Structures are given as C-alpha cells and as structure tokens.
C-alpha cells in the first residue's frame, strides 16, 4: 500500500500533459484535412466527366519548379525552428527568409500557370467541370499557402526587428506544423491533379 502511494505521489509530481499549441494545431489540421479530402474527392469524381475541353492532358504541365520550392521550404522552416531552439536568432531569421522566398516562388509559379491556362487555353472556373474542380482545389491550397506565408512573414518581421529569441521557438514550431501540413496537402494535390489526373 505504502509503495503504491509512493508511486502515486511521484507520478503526481511529474503531472505533465501535452502541449496546448501542438494539440490545437493538430486539431485544426484534422479539420482542414477533412475540407481538402472533399475537394480532392470531387476532383477525382469529376475526372473525365467534362462535357467540353480543354482536358487536363491537353493543358496541364508538371509544376516542377513550384513543387521543388514548396517541398524544400518544409526543410528550411524546420531549420529555422531548430536554429531558434539553439538561440541562433540570426541564423533562424535567414532560414525564415528563405522559407518565405521559396513559398513566394511557389505562388508565382502557380500564378504563371493560371495566367497561361486562362489566356492561352481559355480555361476558367466556368469553362467545364475540369476548370471548376481544378481552380477550386488548387486555389484552396494556394489560399492556405498565402495564409501560411502571411504568418511566416510576420515571424520574419519580428526576426528582422530583433524581437525573436529562443523563448519563441515553441510558437514557431507550432506554426511550422501548419506549413508542413500545407506541403503535405500539395503532395496529394500534385499526385492527384498532375500525375494520376493527366
């Protein structure tokens, strides 16, 4: 009995629960994932069901540059977090800047792609089911990239102003979860839209 009580009090002293920020962000990611799943399902369901052209095979090209940039930005944001944890604020802000730059290149790549689709191939959200589902899915993802970039830029702004230190590493880490999620969604979108869907 006494041994049991001792064990109990000891475990009471070490009463530790998961981190709020991480749990909250994971919940948000699950809820967002549900939204994306429905858009992906709609895309797959309507593949090849358009009554008129253009079709994905005719107009879509692999967005290699954007994909490489976005996926590597997951690495750079990770380096930014680990650098900040080691209290290397300058290094961290460099990695942050690189992340924002890579995300920006991805968005620019998407913009160029859309411009080409709209003005050269005449594909808009109204054209056919392909246009409807393509712009919705890729646009939904791009809007998430924009939100993520906004938050990362804010962090970068603080970093440049010299207000970032290791006590903020935890928050930056939670933010990086969101960024990794945005990247993971892109992997799915890339495979469904550009690889299988062509």
């Amino acid at each position, binding site marked *: 009995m006494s041994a049991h009580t001792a064990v109990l009090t000891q475990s009471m002293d070490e009463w530790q629960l998961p981190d*709020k920020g991480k749990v909250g962000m994971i919940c948000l990611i699950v809820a967002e994932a549900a*939204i994306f799943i429905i858009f992906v399902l709609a895309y797959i369901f309507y593949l090849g069901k358009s009554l008129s052209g253009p079709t994905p095979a005719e107009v879509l090209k692999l967005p290699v540059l954007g994909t490489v940039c976005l996926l590597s930005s997951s690495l750079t944001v990770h380096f930014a977090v680990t650098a900040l944890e080691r209290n290397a604020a300058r290094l961290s802000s460099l990695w942050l800047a690189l992340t924002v730059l890579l995300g920006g290149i991805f968005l620019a790549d998407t913009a160029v792609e859309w411009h080409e689709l709209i003005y050269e191939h005449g594909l808009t959200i109204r054209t056919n089911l392909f246009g*409807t589902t393509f712009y919705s899915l890729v646009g939904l993802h791009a809007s998430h990239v924009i939100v993520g970039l906004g938050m990362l830029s804010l962090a970068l702004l603080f970093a440049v102003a010299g207000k970032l230190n290791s006590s903020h590493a935890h928050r930056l880490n939670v933010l990086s979860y969101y960024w990794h999620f945005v990247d993971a969604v892109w992997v799915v979108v890339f495979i469904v839209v550009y690889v299988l869907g062509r």
Partner: protein
Amino acid sequence: MPPQTAGAMTSDSPPSHPKLWLDAVNEWFTTVDHKRIGMLYIGYALVFLLIAGLEAVVMRIQLAVPNNHFVSPQVFNRMFTMHGTTMVFFVGMPILFGFGNYLIPLMIGARDMAFPRLNAFSFWISAFGGLLLYFSFIGGDGLYGAGTAPDVGWFAYAPLTAKLFSPGHSTDYWILGVFLSGIGSVGTALNIVTTIVCMRCKGMTMARMPLLPWLYLVTSAMVFIAIGPLTAAQMMLGFDRFLGAHFFDVQAGGSAVLWMHFFWIFGHPEVYILVLPAFAFANEIIPVFSRKPIFGYSAMVGATVLIGFISLGVWAHHMFTVGLGPAGNTFFTLATMIISVPTGIKIFNWLATLWGGKIRFATPMIFSIAFLFQFLIAGLTGIMLSAAPFDWQLGNSYFVVAHFHYVLVGAILYMIFAAFYYWFPKMSGRMLSETLGKWHFWLFTIGFHLTFDFMHVPGLMGMPRRIYTYEADRGWAAWNMIESIGMIFQAAAILIFVWNVVRSYRHGEEAGPDPWDAWTLEWSTASPPPHYNFAEEPVVHSRRPLWDLKHPQAPDSDYE
C-alpha cells in the same frame, strides 16, 4: 495572459457602487471567460429555440386541417427550411457547446478553456451566422421574389439551389449563415479537445475523467471530420452561385447526387454530434439521482468511441431512395443497424445504474427517465428505417419526420431540459422551481407524445414530408389535428419553462455550492463559481473527487 490576471483581480474586490448597465453589457461583449461564453451560447440558443419553435407552430397550424390556407405555400417552404436550419445549427450546436464551455473546465479542474480568445471568437462568429440567416427575411430575394428567407429545405438539395432555380440571395444567406456557424463549431471543438487533453488538474487521468468531458471529446473529434465536408460543400455551392462553377450543375455534367453525399457525410455524424452531449448529460445526472456510481464506465467510453467511428460510415442511409445499388444498400443498412449495438450498451448501462439505486425523482431525473424511454423508441424506428426496402416505402414521409423528432426532441431536447434543471443552480446560484418544473415536464411530455407518436401514422399512410396541405379524403386529417393539439401543450410547457428560468433567476431558492449532493468537481466550488473557478487547483484521486472529500472514511480511491 491579460484576461486571466484581470479576472482574478476584479473577482476578489466587488465594486462598491452599482455598475452602469452599459458596463455590464460591455463586460458580456468583451468577455473571454468560459462560463460567460457558455451562458452566451445557451442564451443565444434559447432565443433561437423560441423563434424556430414559433416556425413549427406556424407549420402545425397550417397542417391542422385539410385544405388550409393559414399561410401561403411560399411562406410554408420558408418555415420548414428555417425551422430545420435554425434548430440544427443555431439551437442544437450552440446549446451543447454552451454547456460544454461552461462545464468542461469546471469538471476537469481547470481555470478556463485552452484558448479563451478563440473561444470568444467562435461564439461571435456563430452568432453572426445566425443573424445573417435571419437577416435574409428582409435582405434576401427568394424563389418567389422580394424579401424572403431561404426556402430550399434544410438539406438544400441540388439543383434547386442553383442560381437558375433559386434566384435572389436567400440561398446565399443560407450558405453564409451555415458556413460561419461551421467555422465557430470547429473553433469551439478545437478548444474543447485541447482543454480536455492538456488542462486536466493533477491526478485526473483520462480513466478518472467524468464521462461528460469524455463524450464531449468524442463529439468534438467528430465535429472536425463532419463539419469539414459541410464547409467544403458550402464553398462549392458558393462557387457555383457566385463564380459560375459547375459542381452541382447537371447541365454541365455535374452531379446532384454528389451534393447529397457531401451533405449527408456531414449530416449523419451531425446527429451523433448532437446526441452525444445529450448522453453526456444523462451520464452525469442518472448516477447522482440514483445515488450510485455510473455502471460500466469503460463500456460507456468504448461505446461512445465506437459510435463515433461507425457514425462516419452510415450517411447514405439518407439516400436509399436515390438508388445506390445492392452493394451500397447492403453496406449502409448493415452499418446503420450495427450502430444500435453500442447505443444499446449505453441504454443497458443506464438501466443498470438505476437498478437497485435510491432514485430521487427531481425534475432533472424525470426528464432523464423520459429520455430513456423515448430514445429507445427513436432507436427502434431508426432500425426500421435502416432496412433499405422499408425506407423505399417510407423515405421522405412523415414517418421519417416522426422518427428524427423522436431523437431530436424526445432524446436531445429532453436531456437539454434535464441539464438545465441540473446545472442552472450552479450557473445562477438559485434553484429552478420544482413545481413549475413538474408542470413543464408533464405538459411537454403529453404534448410531445400527442404530436410525435401520432405523426408516425399519417407517415405510414403515405403523407409526404414538406407537403403544404392535403385533401380531406386522404384519412390524414384526424391524425394531423391531434398532432397540432399536442403542439399547444408543448408551447405551453415551453412558456412555463421560460417563466421558470426568468422567475427563479431573481427569486429562486438559494442553491449553495452542491444542491444535489453530487460527486464531480464543478460542485466543489461556489454557485455561481468565481472567475478563477477554484481557489486552489484541485488534486484528484478517483472518478468521484467530491465523494472522496465528503467520505474520507471510504473514498473511491481505495477501490481503484
């Protein structure tokens, strides 16, 4: 952190002079305290309950006699659309989140929710959604022209919602209202999960947590998975209506059935999202008034998790009449029937809790007992409808309407009333009148059974739902008259309830911290609780911490 410190400072030093009413209003508008936000949720849901109830009254008057023209068909369409949408999104969800907000931090011994400001945001964004929905009465053009509310039904099937068939903006208000309510729901669910996972007081392991937070944990997890599809579908419909996309545009190759799938992937889990908190109330109330600990705690938790999982795979039983093919019919029939197994486990656990208990028939308990009977019947008609051939015969008939009102009113609303009588003393410091409570219970129960028992019959006789009026020779007239008479009893009971709340808030008997001799942590602090909830953080050694405090000679912790 500023809200916490501010709360702690003001609570100990009450203002020496009476507060200006403007200050009081300002406090309510800017509050981030989980108790106040909880009460805001509940108050706002009650207002919408009265409005949506009034819409039901209009429908019952219209249907009381054959060939009636009390309202026009257009108004009737708006009434059933607004009644359904309001009851699900602006009564059911907010009232359950309200109780969750209020009770969960108190029950797990926490100071507040995990994200107090997100909490306030979630409430106000939902409230804005409700206001937008009702603004459509003056701001939106509907199917038939000027100034109307949405009239496409609460599940808004395509292609009726297309720009062509629903011109004007009434459907847009519906989309926006529901969309915003969804954002608020996800925010609150996120908050609830994080609070439960990360903020339990010392010693409160998951296995010692009261069942109410457990069930809210499951229901909130379901919110993430269920509200997402609804939000996505609303976005698609918005794209269709505003940008000319073709998601649900049959002429461009789009599919109306896809909307049904997306809506019900949300819609059926939603039923369980609404009913799990009702189960949660039963799990707290039935043991206290039976003077026994809950029977089968772990079975309850397991059954809840099972319900959560299975409920994600039953949505197409709303679509049997579409023609799903033999594989789809078989799968969804079986999945729907299987969900009655964990539900049955719960009912048996409640019965076993009552068995041999020293039952006190206070108002919260009599509502809970009625809930047990009515939920059983609701479940039985549910099993009947889960059989695809039976559903082909009765899909979209009043039998279905009777079935789901048995769930939503007979089970969920009854447990909400029970929760009100049980926790009102905690929230206000005063008891609700037991005499008025008994009047409320009996009038409402008589009315409920008059309306919804008899509603099954015209359904079996072929009366379709959403019908505006009917011919006298169908044989539905007497049944509909009885249903409408039942409505009068229910309306009277609701008025008594409102009067009870208003009167008891001012003149009710002082409750004290623990009027029911209960066992969970919320009863260990004052009624109403101070801003900081607990003067010192509680430490828990068993599932019934307050029992341990009251009975130091035989604490539960000895038996764990």
